[in-house]
């Protein structure tokens, strides 16, 4: 007799099981940030306007091959 944890085609814990209904299946930027941290080459600057965040990037944002930023 089938367990109530399984439906006719999937088992609990597998993708497609009813327990996953309504759960997002795609990767999320906010999850990536939590797991791997901020992308290299990007940094925050002072907030603007209505408390809006602002950010700039270095050349590392565009390439990982020994980037050299211009001298300021």
């Amino acid at each position, binding site marked *: 007799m089938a367990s109530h944890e399984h439906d006719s085609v999937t088992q609990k814990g597998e993708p497609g099981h009813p327990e996953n*209904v*309504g759960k997002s299946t795609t990767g999320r930027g*906010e999850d990536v940030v939590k797991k791997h941290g901020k992308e290299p080459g990007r940094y925050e600057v002072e907030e603007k306007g209505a408390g809006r965040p602002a950010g700039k990037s270095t050349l590392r944002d565009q390439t990982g091959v020994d980037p050299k930023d211009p001298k300021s």
Partner: protein
Amino acid sequence: MVIATESARETQTTRSNLVEMHWDPITRIVGSLGIYTKIDFGQRKVAECHSTSSIFRGYSIFMKGKDPRDAHFITSRICGICGDNHATCSCYAQNMAYGVKPPHLGEWIVNLGEAAEYMFDHNIFQENLVGVDFCEKMVRETNPGVWEKAAQTEAPHARDHGYRMIGDIMKSLNPFEGEFYREALQMSRMTREMFCLMEGRHVHPSTLYPGGVGTVATIQLFTDYLTRLMRYVEFMKRVLPMHDDLFDFFYDAMPGYEEVGNRRILLGCWGSFQDPEVCNFEYKDMTRWGRAMYVTPGVVVDGKLVTNDLVKINLGIRILLGSSYYEDWKGKEIFVKNDPLGNPVDEKHPWNQHTLPKPQKRDFDEKYSWVMSPRWYDGKDHLALDTGGGPLARLWSTALSGLVDIGYIKATGNSVVINLPKTVTKPPVTFEWKIPKWSNTIERNRARTYFQAYAAAAALHFMDEALKEVRAGHTKTWEPFEVPKDAIGCGFTEAVRGVLSHHMVIRDGKIANYHPYPPTPWNANPRDVYGTPGPYEDAVQGCPIFEENGRDKFKGIDIMRTVRSFDPCLPCGVHMYLGDGKVLEQVHSPIAGAAAPMAHE
């Protein structure tokens, strides 16, 4: 399709004149719209009108239990035309619920994408769908006398648009072969490219998220957009005077035509284009940042501005039943008793709505539509606001508030001035949309053209601001966020054809309640519990008939112009039944005159 039958309830004196005529479906909208009328051919006016929708969608039901972060992807699929407006509105609601603010550049990119959407959708609807109702072939068929006059009337702005006679304008609108019809198709393609540059994909954006956008912001991106935008600006310098000439001619050629589609001025606009300098997406500040939007929100009653406060607008929304296939949710759970400012939230407000479908047979004396009846409560009456097809309410509200002043656009209190810069072959041009006397068919259509120019002018401002950010090195376009366990949010914007709101309640990190209210339910709703007809019904009921055809060849052009002026869609097929068991079937496509009626027993 159209079906016409003798009315079963007609009186003896009107027996030979009162005819039931139906247009069902009128496609290209949420659900399936049908217009059911009784036309009095003796009085030459529409005696009665019912607006129905025969399709149940159920988004508010299946949104429950979903990850809130999916809301914009799912609700975008509500519509195949303005899905991005839903995605945008949902992101606004999510921003509020999550407490996240996109960087400036992210907001400018959304604004540029949405401006392109207005330019695209209004263009294709106005020139390739509405224009057919005013083209040579249609006017010849429905009003030969008007066509003869058009062929002999000089166009006052011929120098600006290149068409010497009004008849030449009408010829250029003939579907598939008219010069302007074909040019407008090219413009639609180009504006769609502009949209895709900003939001990734049309019509369901792939780079639009709460917290900002995933669009990679480069000088090249904005240059690609700007080159197309300037071609559109040049295009508008011809289109706007051309439509003014065409629409003014209809008033001249058919005295009294202002009564077609005319209804009491009851307009709603929920505002569009956020200003990141002011908007923080916090409910407590919504009054302030709502008024800073580049299209000012507002409720306009009898030509007067009742409010431009988004908080008041929000709290006044009521979802009524009466003629809809749903059970009342009175006594069910109240999700939001008070808004974040402590104001009481009504049981009939979208935050507290429950959707309890009850399918049943259509009965025009009882229930006859899947559309509920959204109303705006002013403290005394439940007002059946319409959107004026979108642009009429947007321009009216913006003009009266007099808050927008960005150089390219200035709201004066009684008009909106649009300044378009020099383009390849034309000098700088200033247009002024003046508040009209009527909320009618012609003015809804005229406003659409003016708003195309408004959207282009607004996009020029957003472009300037976006480039300032890029040149300053502020290339961040998105901000991470956390989904709270419990939260509420609301988003307000303008879908192309009018007001759009999304109301969301999050519990245990999942959606507990979600109600999108797009413009067509506001326009196409049935009689509410108080017996107040919806705007289509109201605008068509009492509408005079100017069509010269008798009932045997009747196309219903004045009614169709009226319904289409609200920008729902077009009737793609017509099936006609004329008393005595004689059925006429005819294809009523945008190809005016292409289909001959077929009769069979």
